[in-house]
């Protein structure tokens, strides 16, 4: 059973002001759409892009809806569905892979009861959220921490040279 909370259908006043201010600030600067989407997602507590805000963004800037949807589903950073309160991110970079990060990923999945088919999102993104919305498990191609391989990040706190036991303890605290 995947995590599917009810989503707001319309746009609050406050969101609209935030969007207007953001759009005017970023108007025809390079990377405008990326920056705007990044700010929207960062502001959202569940770190996702609510549909009403995307619709408003399309109408307000004239960027076709199809292009916005293409961008949102192309880049791994953006989420269309709310993410868990906590995130556990396993690095799948080369150094981490050679030092066994695949086993870390499997052990976290096992611990949180996430099965293989839980992963959704575009073909490459391996993100899965526990049914109660507590923890999202994601992978990233490389943290740039290769000297500490294998690396895991729990809520923006980087763990270097992590083994299964240490990771299980960290995750344990999250779900308690």
């Amino acid at each position: 059973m995947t995590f599917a909370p009810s989503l707001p259908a319309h746009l609050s006043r406050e969101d609209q002001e935030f969007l207007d201010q953001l759009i005017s600030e970023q108007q025809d600067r390079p990377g405008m759409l990326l920056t705007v989407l990044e700010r929207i997602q960062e502001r959202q507590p569940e770190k996702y892009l609510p549909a009403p805000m995307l619709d408003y963004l399309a109408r307000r800037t004239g960027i076709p809806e199809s292009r916005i949807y293409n961008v949102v589903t192309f880049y791994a950073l953006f989420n269309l569905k709310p993410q868990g309160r906590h995130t556990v991110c396993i690095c799948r970079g080369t150094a981490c892979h050679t030092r066994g990060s695949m086993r870390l990923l499997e052990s976290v999945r096992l611990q949180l009861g996430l099965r293989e088919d839980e992963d959704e999102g575009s073909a490459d993104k391996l993100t899965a959220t526990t049914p109660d919305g507590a923890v999202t498990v994601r992978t990233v191609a490389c943290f740039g921490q290769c000297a500490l391989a294998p690396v895991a990040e729990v809520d923006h706190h980087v763990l270097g040279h992590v083994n299964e036991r240490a990771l299980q303890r960290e995750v344990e605290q999250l779900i308690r």
Partner: protein
Amino acid sequence: MPNRISIRIDGELVQAERGQTIFEAAQSNNKFIPGLCQFKGLSTVGACRLCVVEVQGVNRLLPSCTTPAQDGMAVITKSARLNDYRRQSLELLFAEKNHVCAVCVSNNHCELQAYAQRLGVTNVRYAYRYPKLHVDMSHPRFVIDHNRCVLCTRCVRVCNEVEGAYVWGVAGRGIGSRIACEMDRAWGNSASCTNCGKCVQVCPTGALAEKGFAAEEMVKRQDLVERLATIRGTMNPGGPR
């Protein structure tokens, strides 16, 4: 600068206009080069890679649909390597989706099917993926069947460049890429679609089709005889004349 240039295709000297791509030059001299995503009147994207040719002096294969023809160029459009690579490319397309030609609306009217025969593809060496893909029938007049889509993006380009409605786009990434209507909305309740049907006309395969033309959808007008008979007052009360 004279606008007529001469290039050599498969050894034969031919004429071409400056600014033409190799593909156009070959086509105007009816030299066959396969091409799925190429479409006259639309921008070129170089996505299907079927039109790739060898150019003397260049160690890489070049897409003829985007490479401008230059004076004195020597182009090879047919070689064992090219034919093998093109066959592999076609087989990858067949294995990627569910191309069940026998029951397809475009059976015998499909460029993929035609190229397969012309380039000698009699079977697909790669494992079929059998993906679970959606068929969107929500539009009153048209249907989009993702099982038959080869992602050539002709529909995206004709909708953006010619119609200007920007309905279609390529969503997702990599093997998960798919044609999507606006914010992944059903085609039937699209906000900007003008129902012009251009995308259906340019689609090389059975992915985009017009409803009512598939054999299975045939509806015979059974009421015809009765109506004529009543108009002509020659309705036969039934039983032998």
